């Protein structure tokens, strides 16, 4: 498969501090790829190195096999959707979208007007064309920012936590639209996020970064079900660590009676039961002292504080680190 974007040994040092330490990644054409990690993990640095806002201390960035090192941001056919959108406040939505086309090396393309119109219609902002950014809602600003980048048909679209500035109700809706948009335009998306739910729901593949180092790359299922490091396991979702073995809360079962057959069962005491509507989080303390959360359905019995229970899981449901 042809790789549109390749990072080889990419490193960035700020003084003594390594913001990014020898990152290797290869992203195939048309993939929705996420960089996931906590703040300071190097994901934004990676984006800035690809966009050309920073120069790497070591390593290379290749776009369709062409080495980008040393090229200025305006010489790279990648485009960025900024966290704060960075719309030009003195220009209307349409002028913002036209901005990049005006600065093409070949000048204003013949089909530019149609491309701008198409982009605005695709993102449903054609009726907002004459508005200034200050007159747009957060969601509309984001669409303008997306249109402004997509109209240039970049080889890779870099998205720097574009959902984080939206209010939570809107976030889920925009998330679904973003995925549909990516499928429709077929452009490779490199999506930066610290939100594991966003990464899992949107991505074809995810790279988990921690302290400037790559922890693991894989599909959402691989990362969630077969994390290779404790960090990756914990960052993608809650884990009960029992004697060095990790079990997700939804795989953790509770029973009043000793479960039969070849299952692992450990005695425990219920400490708390939190009703969350669609499920119940039962917190229990094992006799060996470990604290465990089990996500149980209300159809599988009720558990009260102080009750003696058995914590168990099916063979193979544990995370194989």
């Amino acid at each position, binding site marked *: 498969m042809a790789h549109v974007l390749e990072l080889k040994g990419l490193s960035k040092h700020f003084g003594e501090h390594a913001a990014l330490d020898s990152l290797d990644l290869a992203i195939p054409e048309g993939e929705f790829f996420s960089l996931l990690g906590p703040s300071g993990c190097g994901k934004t640095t990676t984006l800035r190195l690809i*966009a*050309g*806002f920073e120069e790497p201390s070591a390593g290379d960035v290749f776009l369709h096999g062409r080495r980008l090192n040393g090229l*200025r*941001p*305006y010489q790279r056919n*990648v*485009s*960025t959707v*900024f966290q*704060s959108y*960075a*719309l*030009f*406040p*003195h220009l209307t939505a349409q002028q913002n979208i036209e*901005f*990049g086309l*005006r*600065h*093409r*090396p070949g000048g204003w393309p013949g089909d530019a007007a149609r491309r701008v119109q198409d982009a605005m219609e695709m993102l449903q902002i054609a009726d907002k064309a004459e508005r200034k950014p200050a007159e747009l809602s957060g969601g509309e600003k984001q669409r303008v920012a997306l249109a*402004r*980048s997509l109209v*240039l048909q970049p080889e890779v679209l870099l998205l720097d936590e574009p959902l984080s500035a939206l209010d939570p109700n809107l976030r889920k809706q925009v998330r679904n639209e973003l995925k549909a948009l990516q499928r429709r335009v077929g452009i490779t998306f490199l999506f930066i996020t610290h939100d594991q739910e966003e990464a899992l729901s949107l991505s074809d593949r995810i790279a988990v970064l921690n302290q400037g180092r790559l922890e693991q790359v894989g599909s959402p299922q691989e990362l969630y079900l077969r994390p290779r490091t404790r960090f990756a396991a914990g960052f993608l979702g809650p884990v009960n660590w029992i004697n060095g073995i990790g079990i997700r809360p939804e795989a953790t079962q509770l029973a009043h009676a000793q479960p039969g057959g070849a299952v692992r069962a450990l005695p425990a005491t219920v400490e708390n039961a939190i009703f969350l509507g669609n499920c119940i989080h039962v917190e229990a303390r094992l006799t060996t002292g470990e604290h465990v959360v089990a996500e149980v359905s209300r159809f599988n019995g009720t558990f009260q504080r102080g009750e003696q229970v058995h914590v168990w899981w099916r063979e193979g449901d544990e995370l194989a680190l």
Partner: protein
Amino acid sequence: MNRLRAWCLAPTASVLLTLYLAPLAILLLYTLLTRGAYGGTSLPWTIENWQRLLDPLYLVILGRSFAVALVSTLICLLLGFPLALFIARSGPRRHIWLYLVILPFWTSFLVRTYAWMFLLRDTGLINSALLALGIIQEPLPLLYNYGAVILGLVYGYLPFMVLPLYATLERLDPSLLEAAADLGARPWQTIRRVIIPLSLPGIRAGSLLVFIPCLGAYLTPDLLGGGKTILVGTLIQNQFTSARDWPFGAALSLGVMAVVMLLLMSLIRRQDEGVL
């Protein structure tokens, strides 16, 4: 609360009223009187002083003063903008640069203008050096011309351009500049299409802060221009001293003020309409 506000404003208001409005009223009164034989004013009332303002002789001087102030303002803008941009983008060191910009204010403007005279005159540092090096045979006429006046004005008022420009440029969101580059704009295109439009308030404020004092400047044209360059500031000063024509001097002062006011108001209106 309102009472407190009134009490707090009272000192300022009384200072402004007595030291600012009262002299203006007196000046207005003067313009309508006849000149006294040894300066001062006397009756009868007349509007002749205002009519004299339209004399081509004075209109030429007024026009020339506008031209000098305009050129000085433009040069300040051309020099000040890159400097302000540089300072605004130079990180934690910017405070040192700002400090250097206002450093000249530590000495008197008069002393600094004399320093320029020592540099520019026929036997001054520049001419002596060029003569000694054999680059020129005769001293260059560096002093007592419009060039020297404009040089002095630019030197004196450049900080008034740099400071408001710096204030707007410093607030400019750096991600906008990254976005422009990301969208393919080369540095000069970013300056023209993003930085300049977004720093218009600073350009406007700086230009006014330079243009208005340049228009009324008296000291610089007098010292660096010598007697050869009559600008409106010198003209007004002459009326109150050697010419002993206080009513006409008053009319000239208020006339220049009125023109500046009209200019300001039209600028503000255009700004409200979003033209500038």
